């Protein structure tokens, strides 16, 4: 025995962490019974619609089954990467397109669907054209756009606004003027699930756009040197810190996670006046906020302009759609099922109706009448207009960037909101990962 006991003790204690690094991601359904596997996000009401589409497909195709597994949002982002890297990806990979899809495509892990879309032109023609941008890498389509369009929306609680006797903000200065008024009444001006990090990022996405226009972030994507040091960027970063300093966000925002939906709960329980959040938030508030939505207490608007800013107030950011890719490691049989599911199982009439009932706008063309007749038609019409009339519909930054750059971004955003980095430091930290 060359290894002494103490060496073994040390190894035994310290190794599991590194072992975890090397051995992770070997579980999961993988390629089990010949049918196709499909991983997507849980959380109602969206989960029910996704599961419903799979069930309907399985019922119609008893010989070509799809086996679905669900994951929590933040956990899924890591899980799916690990599974793909380990060669254990599901047949159908649910995602947000953009930078993450690019890493999959460049590694040859997902099927090139360009020729399939050429053969099935009718599938492509039935969907919002804007949804294909984030599915395309170097001119080739690697994902099928599905589900709904999700711009980021500024929600507000009308009851609270009436109580304090103020009007929704029409400019950044209005926002800053509202902050002390709500704080004086013991109501948080803005709800925020800051531990999830991308929640804070939405603020920067809008401020960058409103102050400097979409070119500012576009320069980052295009790998321009020192793009984060643009004066408009520094101005936006400074403004966010001013809002934090003025107690614009709910007390304890850095320990609130968006996956728990407590940020939404703060809004519908009248403890916060406003919240910047994705269009999916409407469905959650409708499902969990009792009569908050049905009584008409939930107000919604686009992010207001910033005085002297260059960005068009119609510009928005968010998720142009959700995306399904096919693992290149899947068997021919599985790929066939997946493609058939894309063509005949996604955004069918029944699924479209369910999305609309949840307050979401599906990316299928020609649904205007369905939207107008639905419950909550005003919100649906609003989302549809925001999405279709936006001069620029930017993709969420963490999805548009590569995972490496996105992680640095999210990390620094938290520090920015914690006031532990200055706007200048933030810019220089991020300039260092441009193009990575």
């Amino acid at each position: 025995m060359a290894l002494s006991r103490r060496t073994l003790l040390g190894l035994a204690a310290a190794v599991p962490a590194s072992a975890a690094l090397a051995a992770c991601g070997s579980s999961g359904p993988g390629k089990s019974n010949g049918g196709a596997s499909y991983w997507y996000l849980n959380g109602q009401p969206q989960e029910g619609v996704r599961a419903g589409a799979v069930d309907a497909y399985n019922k119609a195709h008893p010989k070509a089954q799809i086996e679905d597994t669900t994951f929590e949002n933040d956990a899924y982002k890591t899980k799916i990467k690990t599974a793909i890297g380990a060669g254990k990806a599901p047949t159908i990979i649910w995602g947000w397109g953009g930078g993450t899809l690019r890493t999959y495509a460049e590694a040859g892990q997902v099927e090139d669907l360009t020729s399939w879309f050429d053969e099935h032109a009718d599938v492509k023609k039935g969907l919002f054209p804007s949804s294909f941008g984030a599915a395309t890498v170097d001119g080739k389509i690697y994902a099928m756009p599905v589900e709904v369009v999700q711009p980021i929306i500024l929600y507000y609680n009308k009851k609270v606004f009436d109580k304090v006797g103020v009007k929704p903000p029409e400019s950044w200065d209005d926002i800053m003027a509202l902050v002390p008024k709500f704080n004086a009444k013991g109501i948080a001006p803005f709800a925020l699930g800051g531990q999830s990090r991308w929640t804070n990022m939405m603020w920067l996405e809008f401020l960058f756009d409103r102050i400097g226009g979409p070119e500012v972030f576009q320069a980052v994507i295009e790998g321009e040197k020192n793009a984060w040091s643009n004066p408009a960027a520094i101005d936006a970063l400074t403004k966010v810190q001013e809002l934090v300093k003025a107690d614009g966000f709910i007390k304890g925002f850095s320990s609130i996670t968006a996956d728990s939906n407590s940020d939404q709960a703060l809004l519908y329980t009248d403890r916060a006046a406003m919240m910047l959040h994705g269009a999916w938030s409407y469905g959650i508030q409708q499902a969990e906020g009792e009569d908050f939505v049905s009584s008409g207490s939930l107000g919604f608007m686009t992010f207001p302009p910033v005085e002297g800013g260059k960005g068009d107030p119609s510009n928005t950011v968010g998720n142009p759609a959700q995306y399904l890719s096919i693992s290149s490691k899947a068997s021919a049989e599985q790929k066939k099922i997946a493609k058939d599911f894309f063509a005949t199982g996604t955004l069918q009439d029944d699924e479209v109706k369910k999305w609309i009932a949840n307050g979401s706008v599906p990316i299928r063309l020609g649904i205007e009448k369905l939207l107008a007749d639905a419950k909550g038609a005003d919100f649906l019409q609003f989302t549809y207009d925001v999405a279709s009339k936006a001069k620029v519909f930017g993709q969420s930054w963490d999805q548009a960037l590569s995972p490496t750059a996105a992680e640095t971004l999210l990390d620094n955003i938290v520090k920015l909101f914690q006031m532990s980095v200055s706007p200048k430091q933030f810019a220089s930290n991020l300039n260092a990962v441009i193009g990575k």
Partner: protein
Amino acid sequence: MSSLTSRPPRREPRSILPWLAVPALVLFVGFAVLPLIGAFALSFTTWDGIGAIHPSGLTSWREVLTDPGLPHALWVTFLVMAVSWAVQTPLSILLGTFMAGRQRYRAVLGVVYFVPLMLSSAAIAIAYKALLDPNFGLGAGLKIDALSKDWLGRPGLAFGVVVFVVSWQFVPFHSLIYQGGVQQIPKSLYEAAQLDGAGRIRQFFSITLPQLKYTIITSSTLMVVGSLTFFDLIFVLTEGGPGDATRVLALDMYKRGFQASLMGPASAIAVILVLVGLALALLLRRLGGRDAGASQLEGA
């Protein structure tokens, strides 16, 4: 052939004995040594976890060693280790000594103290996260101002909460070790002390504590080396936040590897973790002195 059967069977167990270690050894090599070698090899590569692995020499090491995140993570890891040791050890010794008594009620309390150890770290973290929620937690629900602080949102407080929850979870385990240690101290020592007129407190400091020396070293080794790998609890409770206030080395490794897709630097950190763990384990053995194996009981 008959000579074989007539051989005395006595020797057989001895020749089998080393083979009994084989299953454990296979598992250890398969799940500890091989991944360790793998992580070491990966630390000299560039890999995003998805595409091809490219050898890149010392790039990852250079990146990790020049990153201010590393000394910070090491410092946080050290703080968690030191503070949670300082909190847990006295508590565990006192509780262990208390539970070592023969009275029935002490045994009942001992069972109660044991409860936290039976819960998984993730469950504990989720429960505490809910209790400490500044808006929907215990403090806000019961309208107790002292409790409705931003526990997990301020760097200092979040660190304190992590240490508290870690201690809450592991004090029972270490109490159990001390309970066993105390029960092994020969009664005669206490009887002699009583005859010499030593009170309970004097007995504790002059007999119990010195006799527990090696139990303290065992328990401390487990605490210190174990605290290097605290991951699940901190990950669920704060995710290393706010900012990087509770980002220990193991979390830093995970975030680099699986969130930022930088497997090379993450593997370098994994190797550093192993080295730190080995160094600490060796150091603690040294503190135990050369006669660590010797008996501390009667006649020692």
